[in-house]
């Protein structure tokens, strides 16, 4: 990250020079103010946040059920969810793309969102299943005997007691979605452009300073979220 930081504000820093000749904010300024970069950053951010939210909503009941069916069966189902991730990224993305074309969703935000769920959902399910399996389910029964209805139990007991796991699951889900290149390229048909795609394009021909700035921009939200998740997962609550 330090090297990227220096590269982002340096001019013509090439091997074997240990330090750059001169520093300037020009590459940083021009990259950040580039409308394509800004719009791809916003698109990527909205997409990954939406994918993470949908993944959590889908994973929550699945994880709760898997935690209750016994460790062996639960682990087997989570393993099956991970199977698509074993395929080469291009093969998986092409398969998903064919399905999206049939559904008329190829090249749309919703289509890319659905495509991102394939690699994202297993991580979120795995994290939440482990957390549900660890916690004492009688805590909800206790809340019920104190007068809490189903929604109150969810809001006042279950979600707060799962806060750490939710943050870790959300951070992992976000990072997996945020870093998708092949899946976004094929499912989005070039019409849904995220920052990761702009970075990959810059890698083949962009200046090192621009690549460094883009790399830092890609690392920023994911790093912030992972740091926040790390802090919250260490919280005793």
């Amino acid at each position, binding site marked *: 990250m330090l090297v990227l930081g220096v590269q982002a504000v340096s001019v013509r820093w090439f091997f074997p020079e240990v330090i750059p000749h001169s520093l300037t904010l020009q590459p940083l300024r021009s990259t950040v103010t580039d409308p394509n970069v800004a719009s791809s950053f916003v698109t990527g951010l909205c997409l990954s946040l939406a994918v993470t939210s949908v993944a959590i909503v889908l994973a929550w009941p699945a994880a709760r059920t898997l935690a209750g069916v016994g460790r062996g069966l639960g682990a087997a189902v989570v393993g099956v969810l991970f199977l698509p991730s074993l395929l080469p990224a291009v093969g998986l993305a092409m398969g998903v793309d064919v399905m999206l074309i049939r559904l008329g969703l190829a090249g749309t935000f919703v289509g890319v969102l659905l495509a991102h769920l394939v690699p994202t959902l297993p991580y979120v399910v795995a994290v939440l299943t482990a957390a549900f399996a660890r916690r*004492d389910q*009688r*805590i909800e*029964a*206790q*809340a*019920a*005997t*104190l*007068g*809490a*209805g*189903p929604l*109150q139990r969810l809001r*006042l*007991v279950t979600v*707060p*007691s799962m*806060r750490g796991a939710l943050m870790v699951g959300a951070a992992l889900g976000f990072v997996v979605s945020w870093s998708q290149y092949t899946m976004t390229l094929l499912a989005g048909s070039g019409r849904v452009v995220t920052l990761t795609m702009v970075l990959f394009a810059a890698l083949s021909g962009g200046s090192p300073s621009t690549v460094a700035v883009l790399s830092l921009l890609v690392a920023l939200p994911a790093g912030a979220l992972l740091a926040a998740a790390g802090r919250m997962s260490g919280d*005793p*609550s």
Partner: protein
Amino acid sequence: MTLRLDRIRHQFADADHLLLDDISFILEQGEITCVVGPSGVGKSTLLHIIAGLVLPDGGSVMLDDIALDKVPTHRRPFTLLMQQPQLFAHLDVVDNVAFGLRVRGVGRKDRRESARAWLELVGIAHLEKRAVVNLSGGEQQRVALARALAAEPRVLLADEPFASVDASARHELQTLLLELHSTLGTTILLVTHDDTEARRLAHRMLEMHTGGPVESTLLSRQSRTAPV
């Protein structure tokens, strides 16, 4: 208030015999009733059935002659004190005690004020802002007791509430329960496997046997062990 169990039958799906077979009794208002019997006889299950956490295969739980069969747990006027305190780790002591009032819509200021009064009664007012994970077993069970009583139950169901603490803390908690009962007069149904505890606390003892009826014994003042 009359709580009556009418011919309760229950068998768990993976068991080969009836756990509870035709259990009937009436709980006397304002008394401490202790349920005793060997392990596995269904004492805890009986409390869970009254609380609505387990639905019986047959029979009814009646409150003032109204069957509670279709009343969900959170609408039954009972609170359950479990063997493990089951405190909410994301809330501090005072908010744990105020939980039952919170879910009933009591405002923050009022419910915290009420919770502080309950903490005073159980002798741990000084711990109100502490995280519950940092309390001793005895302190945690006091918080759980205050929380259960703060919800103003018509019957306090207690499932071996003092079994997880050491002998000294257990004795203190038993004394506290007797003091609270003499002040509040709450009807209490307490499950214990400890005959000495039952004789110390109970006005009435219900003895359960495997698959058999419940035997009820009214303890005279002389036969109850005096609080120390």
